């Protein structure tokens, strides 16, 4: 979502004329037989924004943990410039040394004390705890100056737990700047932001780099990387496979470098439209005061088509998904699911009617972490004769079928008896997908089906959803990722403040229109 519209264009001088601030050379880290980092070298110069790309497990986190002293490298050295610009070796295994040397990191999951104010969070750790409340004038002046210089604005006087995610992130960055960082690491910073917040973050980061800060930007959103970064380093399987200027690179090339193979283009073949599988007429879900509610929704989804629901999350997508999944009942209006009028909240009845559900949060709703892969695979079909006889589980049959699914869906796991929480997010999602598709559902609810997945797993989910569409299933795809919506959907409807727009044909629809409608403009205004 980041548009290259920063007022301060970063300094485009070639890096060798700018001083080196961080130099990793020959970093190797092994965990048992696994080589997490394999002789990785990376130089970062002052004022440079370097993207660190890689799939889950490519070694990004390990490399950053070594930089931060959480791990000690088996081989290799880290050099960082001191205040005078001279490179000095950074002692390994000490987080204090890394902080003192000017390395700052903003984690994907923030490390703020929610009951303290923004100001207290910023100075936390630099003064003793008992002096936090005194609000030293010098500290306040420094924070005010940093806010002015960087353009990072946030309310510093209230507990951060009450602030928006975007504001919390700005406080995290201010916290790093307050410690006079020379190298700032941003780990998936836009994963939690709205498109507008992501744009403003990009502007800030470019301004900071223009003032000489070195930035390492970890992301898997390739368009952001290309819009923001000057140089791209790609890790794969623990080794650095590319280190090149961003100029001239394109998304397909970078994606292939990350995955290590050619990524097949998604093809949406025309499919014959079948009978309606979901029909909403004036449906309300949730009480009028609730934030995530549905009001007067009209929608018709037929077999063989994908309707995408766009919108910033929290605008009613949760209510729509809960209705289709059977967690909530319609409060008003008529809701027909596969020819049956749905009036009650009953997930089991939806399953029996032929609805397949891919929940938004696979950890909380989709899987039971302590149970095995096989047990999670049969979670929705326990009562079927193939899984039980006279109330006794057919354990051998369940194991066999789970093993088959593990092969068919290429689920990387120690085996059907492994607890599912040991699996990566992508493999967990494949178990959910296998469970849903196994029943050949006529209506599929896919709620953020690729959130947090890497490119390989995302491609796989998309391919399987398109295949299900080809078989005649109707798919309701709720996503915040416009690229995904435009690539998969036949029609797109936009959700804002509980209202669902009419579904519009993707052919002839442009992303800008959808973006404006997400912000609350009507289709006529947006067009």
């Amino acid at each position, binding site marked *: 979502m980041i548009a290259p519209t920063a007022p301060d264009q970063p300094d485009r001088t070639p890096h060798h004329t700018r001083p080196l601030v961080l130099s990793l050379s020959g970093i190797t880290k092994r965990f048992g037989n696994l080589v997490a980092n394999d002789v990785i070298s990376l130089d970062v110069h002052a004022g440079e924004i370097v993207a660190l790309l890689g799939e889950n497990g490519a070694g990004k986190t390990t490399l950053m943990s070594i930089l931060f002293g959480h791990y*000690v490298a088996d081989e290799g050295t880290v050099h960082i410039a001191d205040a005078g610009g001279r490179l000095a070796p950074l*002692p*390994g*295994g*000490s987080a204090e*040394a890394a902080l003192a040397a000017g390395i700052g990191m903003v984690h994907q999951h923030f490390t703020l004390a929610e009951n303290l104010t923004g100001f207290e969070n910023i100075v936390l750790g630099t003064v003793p705890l008992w002096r936090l409340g005194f609000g030293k004038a010098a500290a306040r002046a420094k924070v005010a100056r940093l806010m002015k210089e960087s353009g990072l604005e946030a309310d510093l006087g209230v507990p951060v737990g009450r602030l928006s995610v975007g504001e919390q992130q700005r406080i995290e960055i201010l916290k790093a700047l307050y410690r006079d960082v020379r190298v700032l690491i941003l780990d998936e910073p836009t994963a939690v932001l709205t498109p507008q917040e992501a744009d403003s973050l990009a502007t800030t980061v470019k301004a900071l780099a223009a003032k000489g800060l070195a930035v390492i930007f970890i992301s898997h959103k390739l368009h952001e990387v290309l819009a923001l970064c000057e140089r791209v380093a790609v890790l794969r399987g623990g080794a650095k496979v590319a280190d090149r200027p961003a100029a001239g690179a394109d998304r397909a090339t970078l994606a292939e470098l990350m995955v290590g193979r050619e990524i097949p283009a998604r093809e949406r073949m025309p499919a014959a439209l079948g009978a309606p599988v979901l029909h909403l007429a004036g449906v309300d879900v949730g009480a009028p005061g609730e934030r995530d509610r549905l009001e007067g929704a009209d929608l018709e989804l037929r077999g063989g088509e994908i309707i995408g629901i766009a919108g910033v999350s929290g605008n009613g997508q949760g209510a729509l998904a809960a209705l289709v*999944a*059977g*967690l909530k009942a319609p409060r008003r209006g008529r809701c027909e699911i596969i020819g049956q009028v749905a009036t009650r909240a*009953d*997930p*089991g*009845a*939806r*399953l029996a009617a032929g609805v397949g*559900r891919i*929940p938004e949060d696979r950890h*909380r*709703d*989709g*899987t*039971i*972490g*302590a*149970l095995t892969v096989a*047990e999670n695979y049969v*979670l*929705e079909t*326990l*009562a079927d004769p193939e*899984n*039980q006889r006279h*109330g*006794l*589980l057919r*354990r051998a049959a369940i194991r066999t079928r789970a093993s088959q699914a593990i092969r068919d869906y290429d689920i990387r796991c120690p085996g059907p008896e*492994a*607890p599912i*929480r*040991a699996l990566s997010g992508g493999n967990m999602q494949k178990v959910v997908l296998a469970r849903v598709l196994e029943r050949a559902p006529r209506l599929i609810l896919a709620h953020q089906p690729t959130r947090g997945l890497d490119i390989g797993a995302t491609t796989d989910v998309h391919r399987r959803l398109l295949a299900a569409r080809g078989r005649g299933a109707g798919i309701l795809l709720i996503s915040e990722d416009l690229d995904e919506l435009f690539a998969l959907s036949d029609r797109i409807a936009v959700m804002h403040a509980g209202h669902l727009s009419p579904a519009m044909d993707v052919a002839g629809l442009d992303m800008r229109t959808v973006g404006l409608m997400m912000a609350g403009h009507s289709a006529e205004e947006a067009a």
Partner: protein
Amino acid sequence: MIRFVPRERTPVWLTLAVSVGAGLVALLLTAIPLALSGAPVLQSFLFMVQGAAGSGFAFAETLTRATPLIFTGLAAAVAFRAKLWNIGAEGQLYAGALATVALGAGLLDLPSYLLVPTVLVGAALAGAALLLVPVFFKMRFGADEVVVTLLLNFVVLLFVQMMLEGPMKDEMALGWPQSAPVLDEATLPKLVPGLRLHWGLVLAVACAIGLHVLITRTVWGFRIRAVGENARAARYAGLPVSKAMALVGLLSGGLAGLAGASEVAGLKGYLTADLSPGFGYAGIVVATLANLSPLGVVPAAVFIAAVFVGADSMSRAIGVSNYLADLVVALSLLSVLVGGLLTRFRIVLVRREAA
């Protein structure tokens, strides 16, 4: 520097080792107050071991004491597996005991092969009914079952005292507040003539095996585990969450009720208000030591029973207070909780390199 790395799976031997280790650590820690009080530490432990398992008679006494603990341990294990925090096994035990004397002390005139099962079923239903009330409140109104079950214990105990002073008082008992004795046809036979050990033990072990099969091999056991581990996902998957919880309430309360029946019909013969020296609460320790495994409950109950029986014997022999048993039990609970850290995390020593 020490780091805790979450384990993906816990080896079975480690779970066993933690339970056994917790018991040993508890005994070691108990040596400290023993030594401070001036008692001969090794000799005291020797007396304890002798008292608990030094002879066939002693070991039979330990197994007799373990019998109600197996029932209440199973009651806690099945409930805690489903994250239903039933602290009310003590009250459910008394409810079962009350049902036992109500049915078995003269109300029904049936042959033994009919009366014993009737009394057991009645006791189980009484215990189950007592737990189903808090389960209903939890599911319907979100009432906290810890508070409700805990407070019901006192309600039931007071009710039992009222009954024993009033309508159920045995007129032949010289004014003591106790119920009429259960009929011979309602009594659980002794296992070995001359010992107090009775068929309640066999029933308890059978319940442990049955519960193990139920939890690991059946659809309902699967549902109970699923609801306990992640109720949200269970509901999402269309599992009957309320029914599973009701079943857990039925099983847990029923098992605790059986503990009462087994004590009255197998051991005491009549009901008094001091029937249980806290078997309901000790069951929580038993279940925790057993890592909520129904089969593990049996050895855990025997261990806790041995501590109680051994401490009684030690206190008679050398005059150390038998409150020491409570100390061992409390310390083993704490030790097993600390030991849980080992089963959930790998502890890794990180070498720090000098700057």
